[in-house]
């Protein structure tokens, strides 16, 4: 497929497999960090705001 004879060949990336996959690992980690932190921030906001709103309504 593509430039590679087999899947093993694709994973090996010539003799640069370690470097290529390490780079793409860093890429994936940073993309995921950005997405996850956005989702967590949003959830935290709504949880906090809801609690605050309920407290205000009770008092």
């Amino acid at each position, binding site marked *: 497929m593509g430039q590679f004879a087999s899947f093993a060949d694709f994973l090996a990336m010539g003799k640069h497999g370690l470097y290529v996959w390490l780079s793409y690992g860093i890429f994936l980690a940073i993309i995921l960090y950005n997405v996850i932190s956005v989702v967590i921030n*949003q959830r935290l906001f*709504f949880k906090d705001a809801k609690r605050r*709103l309920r407290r205000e309504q009770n008092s």
Partner: protein
Amino acid sequence: MKIKFPRWFYQLASPKWFYEISGKLLPWFVVATVLLMSVGLVWGLVFAPQDYQQGQSFRIIYIHVPSSILAQSCYMLMAIAGAVGLIWKIKMAHVVAKCAAPIGASIAVMSLATGAVWGKPTWGAWWVWDARLTAMLVLLFLYIGVIALTSAFENEASGDKAAAVLSLVGLVNIPIIKYSVEWWNTLHQPATFTITEKPAMPPEMWIPLLIMVLAFYGFFAVVLMARARTETLQREKRTDWVKTLVEEY
């Protein structure tokens, strides 16, 4: 003299309007980003030819070049947003500047780290004190400085202003990064893409790279919008429209 801006400019300054319009745009940007990124990654990793000197480690450029370009564009956006906030006192501009900083910092880390991993097999060293690399490291420190300054003040508005001033001063680093490969004798190769000349690579190498650059911009638009939405709610939490949103959540 009083400058008159079109209506959308003022609407953009309205937090509620921003929240509504970004909610409508966001899904489209997510779809476009996922499509571009899948095409770019498969093309770059599987179908693009290998480099005759660098072999397969050349494939690292499909994330290194886009992240380097984005790290700089993001900085410029942050500085411009800061300036707009300072000059016209638009609070949404400060929201954008504040949200761009951590994204930009993470992308600068990506650029530096993937560059280091590429440097090892290609140059024989993870890091060299080359002009381009050093200027990129300064960019990361500027981002960290902006993030720290934003949260260093009790008063939110003071933090916004201080961060905007620092990001404007740091803007001087952007042309230094760009021209570092021309001004100094550096190990780093010159720009891959220029507006005036054709790329030195064959199209089957640079088309996937261009797709990845677009994918990175799309990704940036998605996370920046999403972050800015939450930050907007946070800052407007005492308004009625945010309270209604929270009740309905």
